[in-house]
């Protein structure tokens, strides 16, 4: 059972697989985000209360979801890196941090732009907004910690620890609107039973979300590839790969 796991964890195998499949993720994300934008900004009807201002949901909610699921993925990679000492998992932790931080910042910024016209204020210190800001600091902490180490493996171990401890914040962000009073409204889509959004508005939202997920996967795969190349630059497989590329006229 573990053979595929170990084979995937070997840098040359991973590099070739990522090379083959990541362009498909890029195409998928373009298609899904394309439909999501057209569907969300033109085809979906305006909201009965918020009018056209609600359309910012098509950026805000996918970004917020990715900020949380990205963190869970980073923490899972950190656990694998700490327990199995797999170098590739260390690269994944470091690769997810900047992408996740970008989505978190996007969620915070679009949320502020939405809050001003609807709530009447850009920012309030309620549980949801504050815990999402803490999530951004956790991502930035992983990024900064990684930079602070000369030795990439020592840096990755420290980052892994921080990523692992910080995962406690993920359920806090998600359930903050249920556990405590907040100005932020409750969850719309993840409610079990019926989502509290009309179907004509929901499809573009789901399309945007899966499109952003594909983009996230593509960006992380590419970053991991670069990181693997850099770390293994003295190994024979990188030299062989470079030879192949040269022969094919790519370099």
């Amino acid at each position: 059972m573990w053979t595929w796991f170990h084979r995937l964890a070997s840098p040359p195998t991973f590099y070739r697989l990522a090379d083959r499949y990541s362009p498909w993720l890029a195409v998928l994300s373009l298609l899904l985000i394309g439909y999501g934008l057209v569907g969300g900004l033109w085809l979906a009807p305006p909201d009965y209360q918020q009018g056209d201002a609600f359309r910012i949901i098509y950026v805000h909610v996918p970004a917020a979801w990715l900020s949380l699921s990205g963190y869970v993925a980073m923490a899972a990679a950190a656990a694998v890196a700490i327990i199995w000492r797999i170098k590739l998992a260390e690269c994944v932790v470091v690769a997810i941090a900047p992408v996740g931080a970008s989505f978190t910042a996007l969620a915070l910024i679009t949320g502020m732009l939405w809050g001003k016209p609807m709530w009447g204020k850009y920012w309030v210190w309620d549980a949801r907004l504050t815990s999402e800001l803490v999530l951004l600091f956790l991502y930035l902490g992983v990024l900064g910690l990684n930079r602070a180490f000369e030795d990439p493996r020592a840096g990755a171990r420290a980052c892994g620890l921080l990523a692992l401890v910080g995962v406690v914040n993920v359920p806090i962000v998600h359930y903050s609107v249920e556990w405590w009073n907040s100005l932020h409204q409750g969850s719309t889509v993840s409610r079990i039973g019926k989502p509290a959004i009309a179907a004509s508005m929901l499809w573009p939202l789901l399309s945007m979300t899966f499109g952003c997920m594909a983009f996230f996967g593509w960006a992380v795969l590419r970053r991991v590839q670069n990181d693997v190349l850099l770390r293994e630059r003295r190994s024979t497989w990188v030299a062989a790969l470079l030879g192949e590329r040269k022969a094919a006229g790519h370099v």
Partner: protein
Amino acid sequence: MTKRQSRMVWVGVLLGGVALAAVLGFKALRENMMYFYTPTDLAANDAPRNARVRLGGLVERGSLVRGEGLLVTFTLADCAQKVSVRYEGILPDLFREGQGIVATGALGDDGAFTADEVLAKHDENYMPPELAEGLKSADGRHNCAPFKSVNGNLASADAPALAR
């Protein structure tokens, strides 16, 4: 136990410990995590007196009276209690009867709340206007359940909603 297994246990213990610390910490700080008090908290004297507090609830239908200039008075209700609110200033676009709002101000000795800031707290429902028209009389368009009492005083979703 191999080294790998001991690392596995170590990661598990670390996660469990952090989660336990978070649960205990947030249990102790529940009141501080609340963004606003509810009319139920004011009635139960759970909110600080003569201090600036935030009060959240639904604007009761039929209670909105516009006075001179920008002055408005209305009743704010959660699932169990209500309180009368006075406010002079600009209201958010979403302010209307039946809407959830959060008002910042102080409770006077007469039991009325004087607010100096009103923010709209919209709910998680999104629908086209035609669909909303059809639901006009239906229950649950605006729900008092998101307005939770800080000390868990009765404010269950089953209680009759005064604001509907």
